[in-house]
């Protein structure tokens, strides 16, 4: 791995449980800044659980707990004095199914900035426009900002969700299988967008689509049964995996 680039996350011995059931065991890995890190693995391997630990959104699930350490820019995000709300503000998330609010396109983007003190008016209009442009959605929706977000296609909705995340100017964007509900063309557009966004953001993407990981990511981690089996430069993982199980998975022998 490229050791010169600074790390956004440094994760040490992360364990997590849903009630009695352990979902992650002894995960240790570093996620570099301004790179795309892909997490791959078969269903139920803990990859979604893992990414949902990074912005503490799993705190909302009753019975969920973690131990170990997640350092985000040298701050342990699970320390008791850390405010999860601030963590989620700095670390944005896009979900598997597009989940726009049942409001107008404008209101979807404006919601985050308004929470954080933006005022309605020219300033907010500018944030909305810029966010939509960054998410490559502006040209398609600029004439219907006051229409319902639910009227957009699935791919547009997902880009709207990305724009909504960008509007609060996070440092990291987490994407949990963002294309699993989309067709190949919409998927390609999202992938293009991610390559553009990595210039300014650290991106972590969970995907069950190995081609997608190979196409967009710089670093890939392979999860199996709650453990991190192997992590490395994407090219190395896909051409020369060190672990037998990684090789079996990427060559399609199971999963």
């Amino acid at each position, binding site marked *: 791995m490229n050791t010169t680039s600074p790390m956004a996350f440094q994760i040490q011995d992360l364990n997590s449980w849903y009630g009695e059931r352990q979902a992650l065991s002894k995960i240790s890995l570093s996620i570099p800044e301004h790179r795309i890190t892909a997490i791959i693995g078969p269903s139920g391997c803990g990859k979604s659980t893992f990414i949902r630990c990074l*912005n503490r*959104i799993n705190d*909302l699930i*009753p019975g969920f707990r973690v131990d170990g350490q997640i350092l985000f820019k040298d701050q342990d995000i699970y320390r008791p004095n850390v405010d999860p*709300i*601030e963590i*989620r*503000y700095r670390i*944005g*998330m896009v*979900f598997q*199914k597009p*989940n*726009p*609010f*049942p*409001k*107008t396109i404008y209101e979807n983007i404006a*919601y*985050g900035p308004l*929470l*954080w003190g933006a005022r309605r008016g020219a300033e907010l209009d500018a944030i909305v426009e810029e966010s939509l442009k960054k998410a490559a959605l502006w040209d398609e929706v600029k004439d219907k900002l006051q*229409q*319902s977000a*639910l*009227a957009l296609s699935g791919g547009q909705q997902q880009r709207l*969700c990305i724009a*909504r*995340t960008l509007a*609060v100017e996070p440092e990291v964007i987490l994407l949990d299988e963002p294309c699993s509900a989309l067709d190949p063309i919409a998927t390609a557009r999202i992938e293009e967008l991610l390559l553009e966004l990595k210039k300014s953001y650290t991106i972590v993407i969970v995907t069950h689509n190995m081609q997608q990981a190979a196409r967009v990511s710089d670093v890939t981690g392979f999860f199996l049964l709650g453990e991190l089996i192997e992590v490395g430069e994407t090219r190395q993982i896909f051409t020369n995996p060190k672990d037998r199980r990684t090789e079996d998975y990427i060559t399609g022998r199971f999963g």
Partner: protein
Amino acid sequence: MLANRYRTDFLFRICAVAMLLIGLGTLAVLLIDVLMDGAGKLSWSFLTSFPSRKPEQAGVLSPLVGTLYLMLLTAVIALPVGVGAAVYLEEYSKQGWFSRIIEINIANLAGVPSIIYGLLGLELFVRAMKLERSLLAGSATMALLVLPIIIISAREALRAVPPSIREASFALGASQWQTIWNQVLPLAFPGILTGSILAFSRAIGEAAPLITIGALTYIAFLPDSLLAPFTVMPIQIFNWVSRPQRGFHEVAAAAILVLMAVLILMNAIAVYLRQRYQKRINL
């Protein structure tokens, strides 16, 4: 074999239609009976006159206004309390034995006979809090009566809001309060409204708990404050029906028609509000 199944299908359909007709038919007979007795009495002066000893001069002004005031005040008390309780139970409380006990108790409270609430209101509001036989005491009692239904229906409406909406809001760094106020409650509002209207429709026809707390049966003035004495339509109807004179039975029938009109109006407003809100959500 196949013909046999079609026959069963047909028979079942006939049965279902018959059941529907029994329900509708009973309602129609009731309505026609009341209409025949009371329609002749309906007039503007019937709505604007006070009750009287003479059936030909009797009107429903004071019970009608009493009912409207009472329902309004009941809503003002019961809605914030009921929705607040539902929000706490659905959004904040941890699921465990404690919340399950609360849940079972609320469900049971919804089935408690209304007269029991009247006795509670008499002890608590009329005597302990010294509100006397006032509009406020009556509304508070009615609020107790409708609270369980409002809480249950509001919880259901809150539960119907997709978790993905909450997650989307939290992921932007919203607090729980911001998420509930901006995203969850607006989506749950139509459902809460529907449930609440059902609850108020039950309350508007109640006489027993109000008789228990001592609401009057004859009033020749309008309540001018929250602490004024009052009467409501069902009590007035009950009073007229139990009189021997034929004339009062007609007056009672006319009052029933007025009460039904109020009920329909209330429901219509609820449907209108719900549609409007739904449209705002779907745009």
